[in-house]
């Protein structure tokens, strides 16, 4: 794993470790949401919601754009796919480990 990818993974885990951020992401995955509309779903301030949205954006899981007086947020599908690839990477490492053991045993049999 490249160092940049590791940093990225760290950012994902941090961004997703919060229940409100996961809920924001879920809503922004269904459809683009204005940040002010998102904020009405939670018993926290608009500023706090803006911070959560910014954290998700830094992690590459969500994108923001301005539309008039509103900030719109939508989930970044590519970012989510990248997170899924991390999982595949973990599985691949397991497979490789097992293949290496098999090779080591094979080399002894010869």
């Amino acid at each position: 794993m490249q160092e940049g990818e590791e940093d990225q993974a760290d950012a994902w885990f941090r961004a997703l470790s919060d229940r409100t951020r996961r809920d924001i992401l879920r809503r922004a995955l269904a459809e683009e949401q204005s940040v002010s509309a998102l904020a009405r779903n939670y018993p926290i301030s608009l500023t706090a919601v803006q911070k959560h949205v910014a954290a998700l954006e830094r992690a590459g899981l969500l994108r923001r754009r301005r539309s008039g007086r509103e900030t719109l947020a939508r989930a970044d599908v590519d970012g989510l796919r990248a997170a899924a690839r991390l999982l595949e990477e973990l599985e691949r490492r397991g497979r490789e480990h097992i293949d290496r053991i098999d090779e080591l045993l094979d080399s002894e049999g010869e």
Partner: protein
Amino acid sequence: MPVTDITHDLDARTITITARFAAPVERIWQIYADPRQLEQVWGPEGYPATVVDHDLRPGGLVTYYMTGPEGERFPGYWKVLEVDEPRSFSYEDGFAHEDFTPNTELPVSTCVSTFTADGDGTRAVYVTTFADREGLQTVLDMGVEEGTRSAMNQIDALIA
């Protein structure tokens, strides 16, 4: 291919990989018990592992680094939990700092490796349980299926 099965259990946050090796249980155990053999089988392709400390006893630490194509080092560690030689051992797997002290900022998984005799070979079961971080759960749930619709349903189920 020695891998015989891979299953994901999202509720338990585990990936279970089952393999069959053409060698007895004791021989498989030796690979983990010997740092020079372990480093031959650890680390992804292109990232050879070097085992530094190796104390395969409960509470012991196994530290290693993987060397990337540019010579960069990626240190990691195992914190050994339980050992039942030669049948099973478990450990926490994580990233380490340059001096091999555990980096608890990054996610840690817990791995249980179990070896049982299977005819003249060994059936090995590797169960990896991901860190008890809700974020990792979410990543797992998102990773199961292609497509945003199914990912959304997964997250819905998670949050409901």
